[in-house]
């Protein structure tokens, strides 16, 4: 593991703005933002319904009178229904990666691109980037915002860029060796891949000149951070963003690496319960919602990210005043709320992994027979786990029961079922059967 100490350097004094001042700036910018989107059909209708005008925004509480914007709304107004400036002012288009449906487009004016560069510069500097460094960017360059956003950020700082783009790992290793980049930008799993390929080529990946890495674009864990830092002998920083809001640059870690500072002078964050849409208590997990205050081409009002995280308002030793968000724990798309507790199918998988080494097929069935939610996890029994002895079968079920309770904090019924009996569609297993939803719809 790297023993480097990172000097706390701040790119923009706005990052340390006192909270009072920050709030005043947010209100002012929110008012401007509402004015800018007033002619976007989606917002125009919603504002008319809610009798909202820029003048009506008097405090940050008024934010809650504004409509949410969802991915579905963007799709409905595909391709450019959310454009808030004349087409000729657009300087750039990007698109979401389209992992959950057809891609949605986002647009930037020249000022938006410049702001984006600045926001990326902030977290890069917070994470050790200095003008004398060389940065190896192994993100795709294209509609995906990762490559360009980080590229502009590095340029803004004045460091050198190696725009290596994605693919061909041996070539990446060659470039890292020959150009001696100290900073790596990619997804955390790609960093692992680089380490793996380096080892396969007979190298010690720790010998690469890398000192820092900035990872984003996918959820990862603290455990993975430790592994990457050990294998590549560097310090790894997490950053967060999504194309609908601006791309990378929404938030990033400082040297304290205790959550990602949200750039609140440009984005208002909310953390809500995705079912009730009410704000969650401080420190509680919920869905992040962002309002992009200063974007021009396609501002977003209360964009629901479907990303689950929690917020931490406690002061940070680095002096930045922006609230910190935790790692993204999962997506609301697969989140279940059981007796008020958030549960992800991945947690069940994790528990099953602990019991049996590899996770068998399973199905989580949720119902509310009376007033309380009841969960049954159906687990397909595998030949290697099956015993002719009832005591061992009970022990297996009890182990699964205990692990699931320890991971989720919730007691679930465990039902062992015959193999190949749980539904699979197009190779992908169905993980959740929620009868509560069916009842709600009736």
């Amino acid at each position, binding site marked *: 593991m790297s023993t480097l100490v990172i000097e706390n350097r701040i790119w923009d004094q706005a990052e340390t703005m006192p909270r009072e001042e920050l709030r005043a700036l947010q209100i002012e910018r929110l008012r401007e933002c509402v004015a800018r989107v007033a002619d976007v059909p989606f917002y125009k209708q919603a504002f008319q319904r809610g009798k909202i005008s820029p003048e009506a925004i008097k405090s940050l509480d008024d934010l809650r009178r504004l409509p949410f914007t969802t991915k579905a709304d963007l799709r409905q107004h595909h391709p450019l229904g959310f454009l808030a400036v004349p087409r000729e002012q657009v300087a750039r288009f990007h698109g979401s990666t389209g992992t959950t449906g057809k891609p949605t487009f986002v647009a930037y004016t020249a000022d938006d691109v410049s702001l984006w560069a600045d926001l990326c510069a902030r977290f890069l500097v917070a994470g050790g980037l200095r003008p004398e460094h060389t940065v190896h960017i192994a993100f795709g360059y294209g509609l995906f915002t990762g490559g360009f956003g980080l590229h502009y950020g590095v340029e803004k700082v004045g460091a050198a860029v190696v725009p290596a783009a994605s693919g061909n790992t041996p070539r990446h290793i060659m470039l890292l060796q020959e150009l001696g980049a100290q900073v790596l930008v990619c997804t955390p799993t790609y960093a692992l891949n680089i380490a793996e390929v380096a080892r396969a080529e007979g190298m010690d990946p720790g010998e690469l000149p890398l000192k820092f890495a900035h990872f984003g674009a996918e959820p990862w864990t603290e455990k993975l951070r430790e592994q990457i830092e050990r294998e590549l002998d560097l310090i790894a920083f997490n950053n967060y963003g999504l194309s609908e809001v601006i791309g990378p640059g929404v938030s990033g870690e400082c040297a304290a690496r205790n959550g990602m500072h949200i750039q609140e002078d440009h984005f208002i964050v909310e953390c809500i319960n995705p079912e009730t849409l009410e704000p969650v208590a401080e420190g509680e997990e919920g869905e992040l919602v962002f309002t992009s205050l200063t974007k021009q081409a396609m501002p977003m009002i209360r964009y629901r990210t479907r990303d689950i995280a929690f917020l931490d308002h406690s002061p940070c030793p680095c002096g930045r005043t922006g609230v910190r968000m935790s790692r993204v724990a999962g997506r609301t798309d697969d989140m279940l709320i059981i007796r008020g507790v958030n549960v992800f199918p991945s947690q069940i998988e994790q528990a099953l992994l602990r019991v049996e080494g590899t996770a068998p097929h399973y199905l989580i069935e949720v119902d509310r027979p009376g007033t309380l939610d009841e969960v049954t996890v159906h687990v397909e029994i595998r030949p290697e786990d*099956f015993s002719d002895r009832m005591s061992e079968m*009970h022990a297996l079920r009890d182990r699964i029961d205990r692990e699931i309770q320890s991971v989720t904090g919730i007691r679930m019924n465990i039902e*062992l079922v015959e193999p190949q009996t749980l539904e699979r569609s197009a190779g992908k297993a169905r993980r959740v059967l929620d009868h509560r939803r069916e009842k709600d719809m009736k």
Partner: protein
Amino acid sequence: MTIQQLSLFLENKPGQLKVPCRALGDAGINIFALSLADTQQFGILRLLVSDWEKAKAVLEAAGCVVNISEVVAVDVPDRPGGLADALEIIEQAGLDIAYMYPFNNRAGEKAVLLFRFEDPEAAVQALQAAGLPVVPSNELFELLEG
């Protein structure tokens, strides 16, 4: 000296028992002994059949989860107190019985019981040393033919 026993995992729902029995029947495999352990949720069906290797393949092809374990066939005196005496010997030998069930003995002269022990090989040695006759598989199946 031990006998190969097939165990099947069954969900406790209507029609589940029929599937493996029909599969074995269609393959011409005879069931010589069976025991069913059940809970509210699932059951374990244990079978002794004429050809366990073929039976295993047939059952797996039918989608069953099959486990092979070794049981010990013991010739127990066919008289009042015969089983109690045998159990006494087993207990003294320090052997734990996971479960037991009778072998279908149509010859009628012997009372053969099937025992599942923690360590079948050690159990065979201990039983023989204590003078309880252990029936090897070839003799066991001859009983049926005779």
